[in-house]
């Protein structure tokens, strides 16, 4: 059998296995349809991410390193579409989105995350889809994200001595069982982050008093928080990276300058990579439909969190003391990887439930009953199906320096995503499109971190190329 046929067979086998898993879950208990929904949205994300080479790391990295705006444009397009759908869902009370606390911690975390994603060669969602292409380095990145976060949220001892007393006092004054306040992250989360305000533009005084009904969601959350900034960023990218070259080329071909020329320049930038831009549109729409589907599931089963269904099915050991598990209700990446890391560490005797992150908030379900983790698995297999169908699957064992970059980058992504309460998806993409300006703060940090990462890689590459080219008659 030739490679093409064999790949197709594998793509169908994987699809068949996923269908079989879904049916087995349904047969076991119809409540698992909630979890199955996550699997298939994961598969859809994985297919689109792989086809569009959709990676948030490459958005800023390729811009800084190679002057290529393809991915940045793709993400901005996705944001525009996703924000409009999110506004529609919020207007019809079908949204599961909730804003996160706003503060400087989001910006700082974004910088750490940004450095990490450039070193790792992919963001949190990008690393998952690249595993589906057979990229071994991305497996290391995801392991770094998983264990980096799990350890990070459970560290106490000497780290607790560094905590400001105000965080400790504030945490102890809240209605959290004190035996769960053990790690430095517990005090940071409960005594600092939870005191920060959340901002949702549709709920601000100005928007709520000037726009009635559904319009406040479309004007505040979509137009002001996502669409206008996205268009402005697109214009900035055009002016800084594309305009000069585009107008020169246009003049050579007999064209003129002016507003019309610039508009066609922006359009040519948008359409330069059709597959990325098209996937931007589809990902934006799919992410919106995902929210709708999860809300529908919640209404269907009369719950607000999958932990309630796990409790009904008798799996009380899976849920937190609040009876919840991590169940974002939309596209999200890092917390479920933290749960996976913690689940493994627990097998080695580490108590991972004596903290707020797992013990109070997110629970620690068995991986096969973890809905968000299934979404991540779905992304990997969705990308694998697409890569196999396009003859792009190849397992690449991580070697040499890539092992270091993968693990280090993944760990930094883990360390950056936890204090921000999310990654490039949960802390940036979802928040910006949902009307939470804090998402832009994480985005700004992420881009700054990526710039630092690119500077480092430029230096590293230059050094290696100089060695490689020293035998040739090339000016170095």
């Amino acid at each position, binding site marked *: 059998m030739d490679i093409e046929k064999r790949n197709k067979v594998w793509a169908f086998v994987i699809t068949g296995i996923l269908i079989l898993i879904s049916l087995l879950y349904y047969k076991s208990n119809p409540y698992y349809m909630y979890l199955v929904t996550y699997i298939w949205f994961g598969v859809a994300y994985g297919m689109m991410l792989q086809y569009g*080479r959709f990676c948030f*790391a490459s958005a800023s990295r390729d811009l800084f*390193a*190679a002057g290529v705006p393809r*991915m940045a444009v793709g993400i901005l397009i996705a944001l525009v579409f996703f924000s409009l759908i999110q506004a529609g869902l919020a207007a019809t009370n079908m949204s599961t989105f909730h804003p996160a606390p706003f503060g400087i911690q989001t910006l700082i975390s974004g910088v750490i995350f940004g450095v990490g994603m450039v070193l790792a*060669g992919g963001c949190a969602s990008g690393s998952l889809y690249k595993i589906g292409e057979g990229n071994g380095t991305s497996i290391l990145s995801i392991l770094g994200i998983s264990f980096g976060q799990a350890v990070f949220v459970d560290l106490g001892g000497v780290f607790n001595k560094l905590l400001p007393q105000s965080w400790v006092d504030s945490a102890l004054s809240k209605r959290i069982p004190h035996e769960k306040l053990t790690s430095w992250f517990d005090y940071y989360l409960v005594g600092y982050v939870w005191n920060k305000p959340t901002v949702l533009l549709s709920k601000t005084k100005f928007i709520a008093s000037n726009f009635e009904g559904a319009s406040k969601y479309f004007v505040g959350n979509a137009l002001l928080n996502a669409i206008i900034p996205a268009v402005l960023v697109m214009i900035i990218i055009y002016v800084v990276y594309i305009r000069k070259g585009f107008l020169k080329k246009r003049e050579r071909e007999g064209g003129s300058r002016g507003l019309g020329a610039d508009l066609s320049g922006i359009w040519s930038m948008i359409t330069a*990579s059709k597959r990325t831009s098209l996937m931007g549109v589809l990902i934006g729409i799919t992410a919106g439909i995902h929210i709708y589907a999860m809300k529908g599931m919640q209404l269907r089963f009369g719950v607000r969190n999958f932990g309630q269904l796990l409790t009904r099915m008798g799996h009380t050991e899976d849920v937190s003391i609040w009876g919840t598990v991590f169940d974002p209700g939309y596209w999200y990446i890092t917390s479920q990887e933290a749960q996976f890391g913690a689940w493994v560490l627990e097998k080695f005797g580490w108590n991972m439930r004596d903290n707020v992150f797992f013990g109070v908030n997110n629970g620690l379900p068995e991986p096969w009953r973890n809905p968000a983790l299934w979404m991540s698995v779905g992304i990997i297999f969705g990308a694998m199906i697409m890569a196999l169908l396009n003859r*792009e699957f*190849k397992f690449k064992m991580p070697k040499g320096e*890539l092992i270091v970059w993968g693990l280090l980058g993944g760990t930094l992504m883990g360390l950056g995503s936890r204090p921000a309460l999310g990654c490039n998806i949960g802390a940036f993409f979802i928040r910006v499109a949902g009307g939470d300006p804090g998402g832009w703060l994480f985005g700004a940090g992420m881009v700054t971190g990526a710039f630092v990462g690119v500077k480092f890689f430029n230096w590293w590459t230059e050094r290696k190329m100089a060695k490689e080219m020293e035998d040739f008659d090339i000016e170095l």
Partner: protein
Amino acid sequence: MAVKFEKKGEGSYMLDVCGYVCPHPQIYTKKSLEKISSGDILEVVFDNPSSGETIVQMCESAGHEVMEKKQEGSKLIYVIKKG
């Protein structure tokens, strides 16, 4: 892990970055193109599909010509003429 950069003939070079993942193939391609002369040919061999789209756009915006795109198994070979 090594990057292979070879001179194939007068004004013709080969860059092999197989095994490397993002962002290395695109950065090594950019660096190589910066080092060779205008009109020289660079054959880039890589196996990270995500880098291909970026390499093509990078060449377009810098005025280089992607003369040929080949696929041999999972290896991608792009032949680029420096502009």
